[in-house]
């Protein structure tokens, strides 16, 4: 808050931040290091606690080779990417359109419809998994990609972010275009969308992370090996014979590192996107 230029205060602040960062990062770093060790080595150096407990003594890629060659882990990654590749653009466009409507139009039932969209993001799919499963099952979509894509094809959270963001765009900008004869869809495509890059990145990042990390719903609705996504595949690791801790660490490391890298490369936009979304005060 208030700038404090006392060097001692700065040192204390850095120390506190560093301790928190270490706690925050420790499991992730441990998982990554553990994925390069043999299962036996994990047990051998567990006690007493030394640097050997953390750092691999004999680095090996064997865990990764095993999960990709013998456990079909690559297929589950491809499935996940496929689902996201279809879902992400649909969800972004539908949510942005919704946000556009809520930000610029006045119409009967607006408050009610907005409330419905907000409730939808407060209640995660997991909480309604039972009735949703029955519904998807009646549609004959269990064990298809659609079971994963359709329920998430519009995101209440993304819609909320877009709505808040669009409210800051001056209405006169849109009205000018309307007078020039542009349709609402043209206004949306030519004026609103180009302005919404930071919030689209934020929303996209959230949709991507949600779907990449989605576990419970896919476990119910798409457990067949042909459509199985990465988190489901990881959960199945344990059920199969001869699966070592080290294999699970390797799969977990891959699962954790992908969204981490994507977030790291886009983090600048992320804070900006949330900050510009009107949750300012």
């Amino acid at each position: 808050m208030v700038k404090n230029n006392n060097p001692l205060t700065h040192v204390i602040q850095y120390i506190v931040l560093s301790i928190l960062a270490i706690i925050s990062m420790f499991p992730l770093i441990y998982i990554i290091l553990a994925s390069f060790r043999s299962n036996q080595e994990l047990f051998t150096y567990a006690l007493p606690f030394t640097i050997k407990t953390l750092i691999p003594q004999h680095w090996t890629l064997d865990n990764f080779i095993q999960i990709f060659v013998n456990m079909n882990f690559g297929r589950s990654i491809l499935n996940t990417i496929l689902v996201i590749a279809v879902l992400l653009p649909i969800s972004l466009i539908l949510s942005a359109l919704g946000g556009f409507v809520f930000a610029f139009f006045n119409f009967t039932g607006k408050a009610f419809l907005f409330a419905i969209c907000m409730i939808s993001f407060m209640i995660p799919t997991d909480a309604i998994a039972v009735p949703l499963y029955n519904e998807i099952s009646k549609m004959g979509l269990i064990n298809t990609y659609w079971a994963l894509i359709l329920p998430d094809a519009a995101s209440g959270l993304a819609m909320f972010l877009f709505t808040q963001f669009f409210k800051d765009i001056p209405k006169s900008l849109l009205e000018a275009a309307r007078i020039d004869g542009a349709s609402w869809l043209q206004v949306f495509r030519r004026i609103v969308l180009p302005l919404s890059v930071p919030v689209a990145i934020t929303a996209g990042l959230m949709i991507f992370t949600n779907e990449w990390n989605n576990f419970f719903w896919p476990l119910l609705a798409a457990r067949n090996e042909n459509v199985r996504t990465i988190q489901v595949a990881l959960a199945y690791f344990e059920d199969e014979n001869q699966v070592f801790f080290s294999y699970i660490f390797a799969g977990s490391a891959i699962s954790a590192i992908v969204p981490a890298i994507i977030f790291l490369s886009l983090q600048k936009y992320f804070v900006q996107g949330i900050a510009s979304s009107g949750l300012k005060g």
Partner: protein
Amino acid sequence: MKTDQTSTYAKAAPYLMLAPALAIILIFKIYPILSVFVKSFIRDGQFSLKTYYILSQDATFWNSLLTTLKMNVVMIPLQVILSIILALLVNLQLKGISVYRTLLYLPVTMAISVASITWRMMANYNSGVFNSILSATGIGRQGLFTDVHQALWFIVIMATWKGCGYWMMFILAGLKGVDTSIYESAKLDGAGYFKTLFSITLPMIKNSLLFVIVANTSANMLLFAPMQLITDGGPQNSTNVLMYEIYKSAFRNGNQSRAGALTSILLIIVLTVVILQFKLLNRDKEEENG
């Protein structure tokens, strides 16, 4: 804007553009919620409260409700307060602060399933790194997820580690929007750090706080992946939260009506708490304005 304002097209435009997203939400979110609610009152094709009556006599249900409340009464305030502290820290004007912000956020990007599976291995009594560290500090090895007194609270620790970065970001976004000149004038008025924090900063970011409190409540009340993947509701049902009881009813025991009634109860509790939070926090706001 002028010419077609009253035309049918202009009136239909917002509905048409909203329709696809709304259809998805109605079909795949709202309809399941309503259907589970309605079905919980129907037995053999007739309206009946029998499912709820059976539940009221069910000790497992009451135990899981109590466990859910016990966990959340600790976890929600803990996470909200910690997230505020973290947000204040990463809002400091220090060199390299964005690196810290990112490091604190990274647990959020990890799947709850991966976090659960790896934390269970790391908490293993014989080979887990947490126990290696505890043993080295002299505290000695602990049961953690397998101890009836520790399991629920260790899940709280894990969920807090995993979740706080997310809520921190929303509070940080709020803090970024506060005009810094306010702090300067507060300082000139001789207001100390905590006075400024409680009487200026936090009220200024009320919208962010409200969002975080509400979203955090619903997320935590519905948390159950750690119970499913680590403790199986145990030991001795000590981590058997309502959401996990629903899962077991529906997918292990095939008791759809019980699962439906439990889901309805849980969603009503969440909704009630959230509405109360809205009322309380918004009332404060009106008082300030008036």
